[in-house]
């Protein structure tokens, strides 16, 4: 049996004609928590969509459980997604459903559990993110951080085998952050799941993940366990870990030279 639940091989992907990923290779072993880090706009969210089969790579492939995702039929992809949970970057809660119904949604769609059991499960999940008391609120009545925690409860509602978190820490206070870190780790270990965490937050991430990939300009620029990377002298890693604006990781979206741009404005 292959011990990588998810594999990305030589994957390239372009939006319109702008090449975003240029030959990415990653391994996500069963039972591990793996982080994908990289600057804003480096295509991390896109990578998760590729794993979920919502986008098709231009070349290369993503394998989930040994099968190439974009070659599967629609039914097969849907079957695959039943074993996946995804926390969206902006929560993506259903605005016409209450917090309770949002978390119950995947259970009602995919199981025939009686309402009393669904209730127990929903309250269990909401309790884990500290929002059992908010179950009757509508998404519009939640703060950004609360919405993300509800979305997290919904993402793990069916105890998925692969859990993808897109920026789980953005907009959380330090206390919730600690709780969520523990939650991700313990969900992973208790369920035997495989977790993929997309994040910017170096220090928090290094404290609990098993392996880290750094992506920049469409390629994996560094990878390793947090200990390896902390000790690493690689300029990419150094820049990221210490949050320096100048370095090999570009802060700017691809643009013409700044001076040229300004001069052109002055002349034109």
């Amino acid at each position, binding site marked *: 049996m292959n011990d990588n639940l998810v594999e990305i091989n030589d994957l390239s992907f372009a939006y319109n004609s702008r090449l975003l990923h240029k030959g990415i290779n990653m391994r996500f072993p069963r039972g591990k928590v793996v982080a994908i880090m990289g600057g804003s706009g480096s295509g991390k969210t896109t990578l998760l969509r590729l794993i*979920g089969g*919502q986008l098709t790579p231009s070349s290369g492939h993503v394998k989930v459980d040994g099968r190439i995702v974009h070659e599967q039929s629609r039914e097969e992809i*849907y*079957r695959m*997604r*039943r074993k*996946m949970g*995804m926390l*969206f970057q*902006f929560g*993506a*809660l*259903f*605005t*016409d459903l209450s917090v309770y119904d949002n978390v119950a*949604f*995947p259970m009602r*769609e*995919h199981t025939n559990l009686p309402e009393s059991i669904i209730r127990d499960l929903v309250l269990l999940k909401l309790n884990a993110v500290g929002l059992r008391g908010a179950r009757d609120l509508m998404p519009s009545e939640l703060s950004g951080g609360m919405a993300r925690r509800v979305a997290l409860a919904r993402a793990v509602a069916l105890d998925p085998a692969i859990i993808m978190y897109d920026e789980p820490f953005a907009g959380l206070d330090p206390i919730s952050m600690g709780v969520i870190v523990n939650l991700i780790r313990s969900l992973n270990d208790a369920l035997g799941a495989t977790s993929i965490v997309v994040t910017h937050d170096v220090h928090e991430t290094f404290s609990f993940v098993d392996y880290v990939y750094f992506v920049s300009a469409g390629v994996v620029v560094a990878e390793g366990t947090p200990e390896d990377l902390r000790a690493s002298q690689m300029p990419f890693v150094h820049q990221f870990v210490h949050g320096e604006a100048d370095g090999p990781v570009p802060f700017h979206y691809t643009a013409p030279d700044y001076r040229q741009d300004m001069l052109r404005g002055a002349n034109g």
Partner: protein
Amino acid sequence: MVDRIVKGLRLIGHRVIDRIWRLGSAARFFLYALVLSGESLRRFHLTIREIYFTGVLSLIIILVSALFVGMVLGLQGYNTLQKYGSSEAIGVLVALSLVRELGPVVTALLFAGRAGTAITAEIGLMKATEQLSAMEMMAVNPIARVVAPRFWAGVISMPLLASLFSMMGVFGGYLVAVPLLGIDDGAFWSQMQASVDFREDVVNGVIKSCVFGVACTIIALFEGYDAPPTAEGVSRATTRTVVNSSLAVLGLDFVLTSFMISV
């Protein structure tokens, strides 16, 4: 000069191709919604919920409009019929115009403005806030779960609303004709009963409103689903819903009427 003409022609060609392309995607979307309707019919409470939003909440505007349309028909009809000394036929005139034409058409236009825009905006925003995407990632097909129930709700609501419109319109005509203008009560109703044919008039009207229901609902759903996921995109899509639904209703009305009259 030639350059400009070529450019102009290209632009026109581009627009035409674009329109046809969109029509094609709308047709595919429609088929897809039909194929995936099983769930919305099996779990009918999903559809009932949408019938509340599209049908029940449109009731007020439909009924009030119908009352006024009926009263105006009464006044205008009386004015003309009186010249020919047949003002008792007012009931026939009101009922036939409503059942055959105004009921289905005006209901559909009001429906596009009241329920159609709401559907487009809702679906467009669900798309813009990644709710549809999230649903897909949960292995729930948004066409089956979100689009199909709304489609059936629209298709079921429209003929019911149109019938209520006609009823209320007739009542409005009655109010003007009998108490106000002093037409004989018995003549008003008996002439109407004698001249309105169930098959030719009532059933044809219902057929029309069913067709309009399909057209208006699918246009609203498609525009929302196809909208660019931005505030501007959704607002434009909402406008397009009203424009396209109105044009579709009026165009289809001509086609249907010409078939029904010749038969």
